[in-house]
């Protein structure tokens, strides 16, 4: 074998090793951040108290002591919040990366097909008109409404664009129309709302992790796990689809089916997250781009790495948001852009000229 060839394969392998290394570092970073976040908060807890509180539930027979209040702070407030931040960040970033790959468009996000507009509408009709689904009670009312209407928009977009063969342009256009429609409907509801209802609707749209409970976390986890496996399997197809539908078909991809399933799953993930957190923007759109600049465009690495980027971003943002002007919590939807944009701009400036061509 000529030496030139070996060098080539080696260079590529080295590149792969770098990507894997990035991912491992990312995992490590996320763990460290999570540990740090668990010690930070309004209620003053030392590292020892935090550790004991965690240990005495995880290792009940090892004799660790903790008080009820500390346990409540850790197990009812901080840990669920941290976990929801990680799951939401990962989910939104994954959904965004998948959407961008499936639509072959760097400007789409999980909200492009209208999931956020639909969810906001669902929340609004619950708050302003009291319209709810049978069996839903209390906080569940808004959650179920937001989820159902979020998914409804996907159905609308999917049925509209499947007549046009699921071409990216038709999906995006249908999404724009749906977005405007539901936004207008939500605005109409806001117009007739009372002062209190209005502030509740607006507050909901800010995006916050205040509703983190173990129940909610379980639901999000299940949906994420169910979706992540089929999406990762489409990594190669997403790679080839970047070169065009025709090329992708010629390389063996069933483009229409891949696009449809990617759309559905990423919207499902987005809808379930929005239902619990309200609207958190930025992560779905920009986290995949940040990730691309670090590990490249091969979806086999881009998808898992995007999850990490999104998780780290959202966890960092929420931790800052709940400590910086404690005891006021600045909604994470507001903070995450302030945290993420400087990073994004920095990476943009560091890119080589030929990057965007």
């Amino acid at each position, binding site marked *: 074998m000529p030496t030139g060839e070996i060098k080539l394969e080696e*260079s590529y392998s080295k590149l792969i090793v770098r990507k894997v290394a990035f991912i491992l570092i990312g995992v490590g970073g996320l763990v460290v951040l999570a540990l740090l976040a668990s010690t930070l908060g309004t209620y003053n807890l030392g590292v020892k108290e935090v550790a004991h509180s965690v240990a005495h539930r995880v290792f009940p027979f090892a004799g660790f002591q903790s008080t009820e209040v500390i346990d409540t702070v850790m197990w009812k407030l901080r840990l669920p919040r941290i976990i929801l931040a990680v799951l939401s960040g990962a989910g939104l970033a994954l959904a965004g990366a998948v959407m961008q790959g499936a639509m072959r468009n760097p400007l789409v996000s999980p909200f492009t097909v209208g999931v956020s507009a639909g969810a906001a509408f669902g929340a609004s009709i619950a708050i302003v008109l009291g319209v709810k689904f049978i069996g839903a009670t209390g906080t569940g009312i808004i959650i179920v409404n937001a989820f159902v209407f979020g998914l409804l928009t996907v159905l609308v977009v999917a049925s509209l664009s499947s007549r046009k063969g699921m071409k990216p342009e038709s999906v995006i256009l249908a999404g724009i129309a749906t977005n405007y429609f539901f936004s207008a409907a939500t605005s109409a509801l806001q117009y007739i709302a009372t002062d209190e209802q209005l502030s509740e609707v607006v507050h909901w749209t800010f995006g916050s992790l205040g509703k983190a409970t173990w129940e909610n976390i379980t639901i999000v986890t299940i949906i994420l796990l169910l979706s992540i496996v089929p999406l990762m399997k489409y990594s190669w197809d997403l790679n080839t689809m*970047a070169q065009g539908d025709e*090329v992708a078909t010629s390389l063996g991809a069933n483009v229409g089916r891949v696009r449809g399933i990617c759309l559905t799953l990423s919207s499902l993930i987005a809808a379930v997250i929005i239902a619990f957190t309200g609207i958190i923007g930025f992560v779905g759109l920009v986290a995949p781009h940040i990730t691309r600049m670090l590990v490249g465009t091969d979806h086999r690495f881009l998808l898992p790495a995007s999850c990490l980027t999104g998780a780290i971003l959202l966890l960092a943002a929420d931790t800052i948001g709940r400590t910086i002007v404690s005891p006021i919590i600045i909604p994470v939807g507001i903070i995450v852009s302030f945290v993420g944009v400087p990073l994004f701009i920095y990476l943009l400036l560091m890119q080589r000229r030929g990057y965007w061509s």
Partner: protein
Amino acid sequence: MKVEVNRVCFSYGNSAVLNGVDLGVECGKVVSIVGPNGSGKSTLLKCMDKILKPQKGVILVDGKDIGRLQQKELARFLGYVPQSGNSPFPSTVFEVVLMGRRPHTNWSVSSRDKEIVSRALEEMGLEGMALRYFNELSGGEKQKVLLARALAQEPEVLLLDEPTSALDLRHQLEVMNLISSMVRKNGISAVMAIHDLNLASRYSDWIILLKKGLICAAGEPAAVLLEENIRNVYGVETIINHNSGKPHIIPVDPC
């Protein structure tokens, strides 16, 4: 017959593009499809790779009906080279060529896959740019990368859609020479939709002349590239020169 196209008809909505085309591609041969704009050259290629589904007719590949084959199976047999390849996301050259291994893999990339990609890049003379971004390359270099990708598929037939339209004189000849040598060395066949009649004449074993979705003439270059045929199909007066052994078309005037 590596590929057989039998009475294929294709329409986009109400406009008919192919009106019953028959075509046969033999082993180790270069077949050119020529004809004016809108005659159906690209469409025919896309039907052959199951990118478009013809309303009528059957296409056989190694004797098998492609309508019954999975896209992935077909991709191990037919390598499609598009006219251009721009992606909104920056990929390296190596990654682009690596996509050619997709029909053979589900997830992981084996060392054999990497070997094949390296070899394809070397054959195209692209080793130096393996880790550069695809979007940074010149038109000629990009075309070679797309060719390398099709090669990496280890196909038995190459389908090339206007491989030289966007290239300068030198790159046109380089690319055509590469295609010829691939056909000769690896024993694969090539079907090209091509504009340039002289390139078709010089490099093809067989030429199909399309007019409005029907085959006007088919045969060796000297048999097809005749002044009456060109007048009939293109509406152009030409002088055909046989000095180099193959027909060389010198355009004179539209009729």
